[in-house]
């Protein structure tokens, strides 16, 4: 008996065989949150490359006004799959990966609350990813109804096959929803139940706050989307008529189901990125996060408001005027907590000692892009203006500034910042800066021209357009190709650094946080002894200990 306990205790100190040095664990059903986190990130990035390739073919088509590069059905499949892959296969999973990796470390837990559920949620991702990609191979091709899959277009099935692209698409999205709900239950439970002693909510890092806020959205929003998807699936396969007008259904009802989740979904994406900004600016400006409590609480204000703004996607749909006005007011409101965050970040940076390393550059670039996207977002909230630019390239430009300009750049910032922690190696700063410059120019060259296009009246989702739009489209296409190129230094950097990079110390950035108190990469189960937290998370310049016994652990570093 005593021997057994002794043995377990010993095992706890030693990494289990092969971990964390053994690369094979990344291809196994590992229940280690750190392995799962990296699995999410890498799988998601592969799909990012696929989705990006589809986008570059689209930009190739759009570089000339005529529909001359690919067939129109192919173009329509491209934009449908581009949007679907980028959301369900890239942004959601990569952010889940970051949250998976970071949250237990940041709150002082050894793993997530439900490690097996965690692994199941992850392994669903490649499964529905393959289902989605398989739709390229079925007769009739992949779904061509856009990532909204609005009926009746999504219910049109020219091949007449039961298993068509749309069927597989709905299946993949439903599985994605199930995976996300599993992840959300796990994440929220972990954050509520598994914080280290002393880590009250107001001592918790902002990233964990934003993850909690984002995952709460998944919990209340996804059921609506999943219900809508199941009804659409029944309409498509067994001829129910929830959404078909000729048999008494209502296509606008689907739009409510869809946007009730899919607008908040944008906040599921952007909230953790806000969390990344809140983590990084204090580190690289060497100052505490300004107005920490305002910043973290505003995340939950955003969560609440995100549930009552969805009709702003439907200002030009079959919605009555009173509804448009009501949702204009709620949409305007949501810019207030967002603005609070932006001002707090600026105040954090202001007067600091800035170090413009790669993560900081990406975070700053992401913040500027987000500022621009926020301003066009308020414009879009205004019904009369939106009526003009709704479903035009203005909207496409706006949300690409959010998703690529802010979210993807924030994700890059996070990957660089925590790369030494995840891999135990340092990345190459020069390649990182090159990656930043190419990305920042590429984003603006690709997405800024979309705004004048939308103002001039070019609808989104078109494979061909009137010649008056050619000039800005050529610029956008060049920007798109540049973004394709920008990924190369990143890949080179990540792969070579992981193999050959300089060994990373536990805390290369002199950052404050529980994850920086353990070795890089952290040992199995993270903490030999669970720390007791005694201070707020951003005590830069205050020279106060973060945990009760920090003396011993910092000396080891």
């Amino acid at each position, binding site marked *: 008996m005593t021997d057994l306990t002794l043995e377990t205790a010993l095992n706890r100190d030693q990494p289990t065989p092969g971990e964390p040095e053994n690369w094979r664990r990344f291809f196994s059903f590992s229940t280690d949150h750190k392995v799962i986190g990296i699995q999410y990130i890498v799988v998601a990035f592969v799909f990012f490359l696929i989705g990006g390739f589809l986008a570059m073919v689209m930009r190739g088509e759009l570089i000339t006004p005529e529909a001359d590069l690919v067939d129109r059905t192919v173009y329509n499949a491209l934009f449908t799959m581009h949007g679907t892959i980028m959301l369900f296969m890239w942004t959601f999973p990569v952010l889940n990966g970051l949250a998976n990796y970071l949250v237990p470390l940041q709150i002082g837990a050894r793993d997530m609350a439900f490690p097996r559920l965690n692994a199941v949620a992850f392994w669903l991702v490649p499964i529905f990813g393959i289902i989605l990609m398989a739709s390229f191979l079925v007769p009739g091709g992949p779904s061509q109804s856009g990532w909204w899959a609005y009926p009746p277009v999504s219910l049109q099935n020219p091949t007449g096959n039961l298993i068509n692209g749309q069927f597989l698409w709905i299946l993949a999205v439903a599985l994605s929803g199930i995976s996300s709900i599993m992840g959300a239950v796990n994440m929220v439970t972990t954050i509520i139940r598994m914080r280290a002693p002393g880590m009250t909510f107001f001592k918790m890092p902002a990233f964990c706050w934003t993850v909690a806020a984002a995952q709460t959205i998944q919990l209340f929003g996804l059921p609506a989307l999943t219900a809508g998807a199941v009804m659409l699936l029944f309409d498509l396969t067994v001829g129910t008529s929830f959404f078909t007008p000729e048999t008494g259904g209502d296509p606008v009802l689907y739009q409510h189901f869809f946007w009730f989740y899919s607008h908040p979904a944008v906040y599921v994406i952007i909230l953790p990125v806000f969390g990344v900004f809140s983590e990084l600016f204090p580190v690289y400006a060497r100052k505490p996060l300004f107005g920490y409590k305002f910043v973290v609480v505003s995340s939950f204000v955003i969560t609440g408001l995100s549930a009552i703004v969805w009709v702003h996607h439907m200002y030009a749909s079959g919605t009555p005027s009173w509804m448009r006005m009501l949702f204009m007011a709620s949409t305007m409101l949501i810019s207030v907590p967002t603005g609070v965050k932006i001002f707090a970040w600026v105040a954090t940076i202001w007067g600091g000692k800035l170090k413009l390393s790669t993560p900081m550059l990406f975070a700053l670039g992401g913040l500027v892009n987000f500022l621009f996207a926020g301003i066009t977002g308020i414009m879009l909230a205004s019904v009369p203006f939106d009526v*003009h630019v709704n479903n035009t390239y203005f909207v496409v430009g706006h949300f690409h500034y959010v998703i690529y300009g802010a979210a993807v750049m924030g994700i890059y910032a996070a990957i660089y910042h925590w790369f030494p922690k995840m891999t135990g190696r340092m990345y190459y700063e020069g390649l990182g800066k090159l990656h930043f410059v190419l990305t920042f120019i590429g984003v603006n060259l690709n997405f800024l021209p979309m705004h004048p296009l939308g103002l001039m009246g070019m609808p989104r989702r078109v494979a*061909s357009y009137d010649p008056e739009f050619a000039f800005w489209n050529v610029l956008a296409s060049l920007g798109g190709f540049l973004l394709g190129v920008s990924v190369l230094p990143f890949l080179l950097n990540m792969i070579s650094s992981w193999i050959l990079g300089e060994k990373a110390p536990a805390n290369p950035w002199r950052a404050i946080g529980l994850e920086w108190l353990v070795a890089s990469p952290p040992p199995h189960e993270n903490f030999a002894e669970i720390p007791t937290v005694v201070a707020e998370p951003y005590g830069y310049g205050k020279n106060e200990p973060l945990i009760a016994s920090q003396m011993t652990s910092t000396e080891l570093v």
Partner: protein
Amino acid sequence: MSSRVILRLLALAGIMTPISLWVGQQAYGWMPEPASEEALLVDNLFSFLTTLGTFIFLGVAGTLLYAVLFQRAAKYDEGDGPPLEGNLQLEIIWTAIPLVLVFWIAGYSYRIYDQMNILGPMEHMHRGEAIAAPLVAQTPESTDPIEVHARQWVWEFYYPEAGVTSTELHLPNHTRAKLALTSEDVLHGFYVPAFRVKQDIIPGRRIDFEFTPIREGTYRLRDSEYSGTYFAAMQANVVVESAAAYQQWLTDAAARSPQPGLSPSYTEYQLKVENRDHRPGWKTVEPAPYPLVNYPGSPELPEPKL
């Protein structure tokens, strides 16, 4: 806050305000030339939003740029910045100001939307007062609306007073255009950028829609709600002409016998049918054949007016 800080902020605002106002004026030129009453209203709103947005962007991005340029840590400086954790007064101010701003924007937008009054009377909720003075120069003696039929992927217009059909939309200038929007198959969207108005068309519903053209010329009507394979080709010309010319056109068109109308999607589809397009593609819903109309209209693109 010291008076020196306030003076500096005022000086900065003094520089940013004229720049923002100037950008706001430029914004008028980013849209097509306005061709409806509604367009004038929307352009004013957009100019206002651009002015405000420029000011905010300059303020925030300028602050960041200054910090990036002048507040960098020296090369071997490992020290921390001042441990400022917040300032309640400042935080309340920057919550309150955006709140006031967005209510201002929402109020202004509400007024503009009310004046535009684009959705039909059955939908619009008339309150006792506050309905803006009618913008309409001459309201026609309540005629039946022009029927706009959308189907994959062709626009067809029916003028009930003259019994005329066309694939080019004709509208009398300075007259409230009243349209009844219907779709036979999927969602479509009625969108004329020069008029700044847009409305989805929902199968199974009839949506009354109105606006007032104010400039003679030819404009583009585009399908704005994704409708399937030939979505991008679903465009038509809109001709705004004087009331007299419009009446003349109606009379002439009524005398014409029905002929195949314009349908770029069906024309393009023939390439597929005749195997002249060898690019690989998937099976598509077939476009509706050319509708028989009194007046097909001109296939020429109008000169873009910017």
